């Protein structure tokens, strides 16, 4: 018998799910978990119904209300988003008719899909997980093959429990060493995208590895994988280890007893073999990375928080140069300007990138005993109702409120502007979200992406601020 060829983690995950090969590069893959949310899931469900098709495995499909639900404490189906109620009700009605599990607005398990899927043990190592949401790659942090799809593909999964997928190339990115004080997974991502560009991953499936990644807590790994789509990756995955297994044990949808033991034995095989080859490899020294902030309208427009706005003249590619000039105009910044001199109007802490308990703890560490600068609107939206309850049990909500932050119910909230709540044109926001695109948080709104520590420090300072002096020690 021939020896088992060496394989990457990605290849193992892929191979495990091949139902049949459709052509030399496309496989029909089994999908183990489908998640839907009201924004893009609603159309998949109604389209499926219009086509007269049913759901093949309702027990493997889950829905949440996160994208356009109101995040004020006394919320109901009404949302500031115009037409929003139709999205909510269409999703709820279809979920009921098809018998899908729905985490509805008043369900204690409700929250952002990529926060609650791990929290409830719905995503598991080695599983294929899809959702019509680009940040589904977040869940690769648990060793799942998880990626974002369109609504038509969600319909395909509902009807067939499979997807037709062209196999991407693979790329391993290692981070080595202990990051500096006040440097988070968000900073590693922004640094990577800033260095390699927003198209840097070129559709490859990433594996994050190296000593830095091994020492990151699971929530930080989720942040790292979350930002992979901003790097143009097909998805990202991290080999599951005890950090993941300890996190999952006892979660509501995770296996138990003998089944857990069987699963665990399988999960321990989910790693890249020593001799396995990737199409691309890169390795970076994480000790050299500072806290980062974006200055422009792409996540690749990132610099150290103690750095300066770059000059477009230094860029030889005319498309890139014009993009930088356009971004400077939109952001109201000048080349050479210090980032930590730039005054801010608002701070938003939340989103599938940075709204988990450790994110809120880090921000609270900065905020404790301090006040938000006069005139700065500061909002914290926990990623799930579970995160909210856990934070409140530790008294984090009081730290946020005492500092002058709004403390909200779970949802995507101000991560994007859907015509309801938003910031005013030309307002400058430091945000722990993932996209600083033109208009993303409101028409003309200027978004600076950063970590929860940097966002909190900026709220206190009233300008973009280096979090390190605020964190002490």
């Amino acid at each position: 018998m021939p020896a088992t060829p060496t394989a990457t983690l990605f290849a193992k995950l892929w191979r495990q799910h091949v139902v049949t090969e459709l052509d030399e590069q496309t496989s029909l893959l089994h999908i183990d978990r489908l998640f839907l949310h009201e924004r893009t899931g609603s159309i998949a469900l109604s389209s499926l119904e219009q086509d007269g098709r049913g759901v093949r495995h309702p027990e493997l499909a889950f829905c949440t209300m996160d994208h356009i639900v109101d995040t004020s404490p006394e919320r109901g189906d009404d949302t500031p988003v115009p037409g929003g109620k139709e999205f909510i009700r269409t999703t709820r009605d279809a979920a009921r008719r098809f018998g899908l599990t729905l985490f509805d607005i008043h369900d204690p398990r409700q929250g952002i899909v990529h926060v609650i899927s791990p929290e409830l043990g719905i995503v598991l190592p080695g599983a294929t997980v899809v959702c019509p949401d680009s940040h589904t790659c977040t869940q690769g942090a648990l060793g799942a093959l998880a990626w974002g799809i369109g609504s038509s593909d969600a319909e395909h999964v509902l009807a067939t429990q499979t997807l037709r997928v062209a196999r991407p190339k693979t790329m391993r990115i290692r981070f080595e060493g202990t990051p500096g004080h006040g440097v988070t997974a968000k900073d590693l991502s922004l640094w990577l995208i800033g260095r390699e560009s927003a198209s840097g991953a070129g559709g490859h499936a990433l594996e994050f590895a190296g000593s830095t990644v091994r020492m990151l807590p699971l929530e930080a790994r989720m942040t790292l994988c979350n930002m992979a789509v901003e790097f143009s990756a097909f998805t990202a995955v991290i080999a599951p280890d005890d950090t993941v297994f300890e996190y999952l044990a006892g979660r509501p949808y995770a296996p138990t007893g003998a089944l857990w033991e069987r699963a665990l034995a399988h999960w321990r095989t989910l790693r890249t073999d020593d001799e396995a080859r990737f199409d691309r490899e890169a390795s970076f020294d994480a000790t050299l990375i500072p806290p980062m902030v974006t200055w422009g309208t792409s996540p690749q427009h990132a610099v150290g928080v103690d750095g300066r706005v770059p000059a477009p003249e230094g860029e030889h590619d005319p498309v890139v140069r014009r993009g930088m000039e356009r971004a400077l105009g939109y952001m109201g910044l000048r080349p050479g300007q210090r980032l930590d001199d730039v005054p801010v109007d608002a701070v938003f802490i939340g989103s599938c990138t940075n709204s988990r308990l450790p994110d809120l703890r880090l921000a609270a560490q900065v905020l404790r005993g301090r006040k938000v600068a006069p005139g700065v609107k500061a909002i914290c939206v926990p990623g799930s109702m579970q995160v909210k309850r856990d934070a409140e049990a530790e008294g984090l909500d009081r730290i946020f409120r005492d500092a002058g932050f709004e403390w909200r119910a779970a949802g995507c909230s101000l991560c994007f502007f859907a015509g309801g709540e938003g910031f005013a044109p030309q307002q400058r926001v430091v945000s722990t979200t993932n996209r600083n695109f033109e208009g993303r948080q409101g028409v003309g709104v200027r978004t600076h992406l950063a970590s929860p520590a940097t966002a909190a420090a900026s709220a206190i300072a009233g300008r973009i601020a280096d979090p390190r002096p605020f964190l002490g020690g």
Partner: protein
Amino acid sequence: MHQGIAAPLMRANVDTDAIIPSREMKRVSKVGLSAGLFAGWRYLDEAVRAPDPAFVLNQPAYAKASILLAGPNFGCGSSREHAVWALREFGIRAVIAPSFGAIFQNNCIRNGLLPVELAEPAIHELATQTLDGPLTVDLLRCVVRAPDGTEYRFRIGHLQREMLLEGLDPVALTLRLDESIRAFQARDREERPWIYLPIHTAAR
């Protein structure tokens, strides 16, 4: 084969929020989206739809464009298929860019919008000729022909090409593979029983 006017939108990282802002997704629907296409760039005042004459698709020469020329990573960002539905409804049949956001590219194939990958210098050459006449995109031969007759070869997956040429419904095709799916699941249930949750999880 498609022949049409190509509009140059030579920006990098044109994201799906720019193609169709979330504020333009007002109904649970795949139609009624074209007025919101590029809303943030196309209008001086979105509320009254006052066109910005500086935006390429508002210029008379490009008002009937059915092909877009763009910079790298076109369609990055949000997975919203509405971006493709809006482009299609507006009349765009092909987008030519050095690279595409992966989810967007897939959504294109699902909706009969052809994503053509060409090298950046080739797209710059095409962009200089947009006023000289229509471009021809030939999916059968996998070539783009410029008004000056130059042909640029592009690559596309065999299956993707077939889906676009035949306008096939992938769900119907996959349902024909039902036996394979059943066989896979029977085998997989033995190997990974923890994946298959009990039927009435909603009651948990």
